[in-house]
């Protein structure tokens, strides 16, 4: 079914939103992901993904307070919904299950 599947990028952003609990918006998410993975995402791509996640119902957004550097402009803060949380969990479960059934590998390298 459309909408329940999470792409890798979406998963990352959704995780970021969940981690930042209550203080998640584009800038902080970019920083959080950078801190954890070293990947420098652009603001616009994160924003686009957040919009898409909201449309899928995995996050919901509200306008929050402002900061000085923002010139009085409010932030759009994102919060993970239970559906979003569920999906993240599912994703992890799938991984875990598949990890568990994976045979042990011993790699022989051919020189």
């Amino acid at each position, binding site marked *: 079914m459309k909408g329940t599947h999470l792409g890798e990028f979406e998963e990352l952003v959704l995780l970021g939103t969940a981690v930042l609990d209550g203080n998640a918006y*584009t*800038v902080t998410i970019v920083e959080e992901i950078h801190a954890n993975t070293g990947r420098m995402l*652009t603001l*616009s791509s994160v924003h686009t993904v957040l919009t898409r996640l909201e449309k899928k119902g995995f996050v919901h957004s509200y*306008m929050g307070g402002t900061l000085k*550097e923002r010139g009085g*402009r*409010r*932030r759009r803060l994102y919060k993970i919904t239970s559906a979003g949380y569920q999906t993240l969990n599912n994703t992890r479960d799938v991984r875990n299950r598949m990890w568990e059934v994976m045979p042990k590998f011993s790699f022989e390298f051919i020189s």
Partner: protein
Amino acid sequence: MKKKSPPDWADRFLEWYCSDYYLEEVQGDLHEWYYKELQRIGPRAAGFRYAVAIIRYFRLFRLKPVQKLINNPNYLSMKSIIKITYRNLRRDKISGLIRVGNLSLGVIVFLLALVYSKYELNYDRFHEKGDRIFRVGMSFGGNPWAATPLGMGAFVQDNVPEVKRMTRFAPIRNTWVKFGENQFYEKGGFSADSSIFEMFTYTFIQGDPKTALIDPRSIVLTERIARKYFGNENPMGKRLELSIDQDREGNIEPRIVTGIIEDIPQQSHLQFDFICSIYTFDADFLRKWRNFWVYTYVELEEGSDPDNTKSITKEEFVSLRSLSKDEAAQLEILMTPVERIHLYTNHEKEYADNGNILYIYILFSIGVFILIVSCINYVNLTIIKGLDRAREVGLRKTVGASRHQLVMQFLGENMVLLSLAGLICLIALVILAPVFQRFSGLDLPLNFIYDPAIIFPLVAILLTLELISGLYPAFVLTKFRPVDIIKSGTQTVPMRKIGLTRKVLIIIQFSLSVILVIGSIVVFNQLRFIQRQDLGFEKDQIILIKLNQSVRGKFKAFENEMLQIQGVRSVSTSSSVPGYRIMLEDVIEIGAPDEYGSRLLFADETFLDTYEIDLLEGRHFDGTIKRGENEFMLNQKAAEMVFGDKHPLNNEITIAGDTGLVVGIVKDFNFQTLHSEVEPLTISNLPIALFGYASIKFEAKSAKEILEAIDVNGRKIYPELPPLETEFLDNRFELLYMAENKLQNIVWIFCMITILLTISGVFGVATYNAHKRAKEIAIRKVLGGDLLGLLQQLSREYLYLLGFSLLIGLPGAFYLSKWWLQDFAYRISLDPPTFLISALVMIIIILVSSGFVTFRAATANPVEALKNE
């Protein structure tokens, strides 16, 4: 230190595209990010990244119009309408295809006809005073002339109070024009009065319109010609040398360039390259009422009536020529508005090959008919399709859809289809434009889809269809109580409720189809007829050489050279040739009271052989021309006109001042096109100075050698002249019939389109009916109904309607054809077989297309139709 802030222009770009919904947060995020980066990488890099980020934010969903659309309260219902339309179309592809295809085809045909007609109708509309400018002409006994004597212009200027300005156009056809090294042979010049540029709207690039032609030695050039002689130099004040070919002394006349005008628009009957001042002629000559050779245009005072000009001019002419009462009654002064010249006149001595309003009528009415046929197809199919959805409407109503919503649903669905058709039309027009241009040979603007004359009719057609085919089922259906529809279990509204409207539409459609098909056949036959008619002479294998003063002088030598060439059968010189205009003169039998008008052709003794014209009586010219000893041959028409029952041979006649014996009678031959009847013709053996053409009759296979020989001999005998102008006579005739040829092709294509539209319309409705009555058919079959009976049952309705349509269509076609044919001097007779065959063809078309569908339904296994109950 300067205060650091994000670049302004980038911000403005963001504010320009981004919808308000996202703007605040996005801009805030970006600013916050900018200040963070400012610490890390400095102001320039941060500013650059800021700008890049803004560009990367540019996504469809953040755009202002998109957000506006999504937030529109109707967005959802629009979305659902499009979705449902798509599903309906997918379920019944054939009906959708027929509807959109039909409509697009009809609209395209109509629009092309419209563009073409508009182009032709817009001739000479660019003159600002066009509504007050008239061309003065004369008509003698119903034979109208475009040209007038020089004196007439001067007379009306002085004596008619309503005439504000007057200008004469005296053609200068063959002229050598020289500037320094550049010398060319020019054919498109006029001498004109200085008022020309105050009357006609020609745009001056350089020079003063008011004074440009006052000096007798002045000349005004079009931009094209100016560039040809002067390149990028400024031509103003430069001296051109003209040597006019008709001038026997070969004088060189200097002309000073006093003005440059933009090239003459293609949509004008007056095409020229340069204009000289007419005042090189002396004042006396300018008042002479002798030859009819100049074109006189007058501008009347605002709101005045041309009748006064006519009566004053007529009086003067009558008294000048001392015409008798009868003759005066035959004379009429014509005032043709300049805008009508191109389409409505084709007079004697007409300067240009004009168009013909009848062809515009034909083309346009066919366009309109086809449009109506295709629209009726569309409306018909859409209405029955719409009414088929009674149950859906009932259900929607039951679950609470308001009437307004239902109407919107129908209108919206319809709109989607119509927009699709409109889009197809526009795309097709763009694709077809070059093809159409090549075919019509007109410089139609390529971007004609931006033309309001196209967009408005297109939108109007689509809106009308939207209203008819969308509103009708919507209102019919939403009127019913849902309970009735659902309870009755019928999918559809009983047919008899809408029967009448549909029947009337079908009858109109069939009638128009009948008229179109018959009309096409008549037009086609007529056009073929006039092209295949026996002209009375042989037009094939003749090469014409145009003679002018320079060529004529040494033509005898040239002729002798040519006669040596293998394959040349004969060479003849004459003042004119069939296919070109032949001058009209008065002819009178010596001693007889009455004067007659006759065409006068000067020709040498080989003319009849060259053109294979039959000599009925008497003898040919014998080739020994002595001064003052004229001989004439008459054609049958002229002999009968002048001499009646008397035997014409060896009687004396006078024509154009020359008196001589009638020595021979030739069989009538048609020297004009077959639009006009054979006119009286007198052939004279006299003056060689008037010979305008040489005709070379050659053996069929040696055309190439002869053209080469003409070139070689031409260069030998006329080393100083440009190559001789040659033309194949049959090409000339093809040119004369070009309009007919094109029309013939167009009519053929349109006829096919009409048949196609009719078939698809019938096919669409029949498919629907067969589908509706599938169960009935199945039951009939199970109970033992035979195939023929079934076909009869299902086709009866169409035959019945067709019968009605034939009652309207046949007489309609008859009268329209008759009206159109009356323009032709030689015409086919409207015999019953044409009509019977056309009617039969229509019946067969309708039977086959409805029969095919019915046949499929009737041969299907009845189980298929009956099992799902």
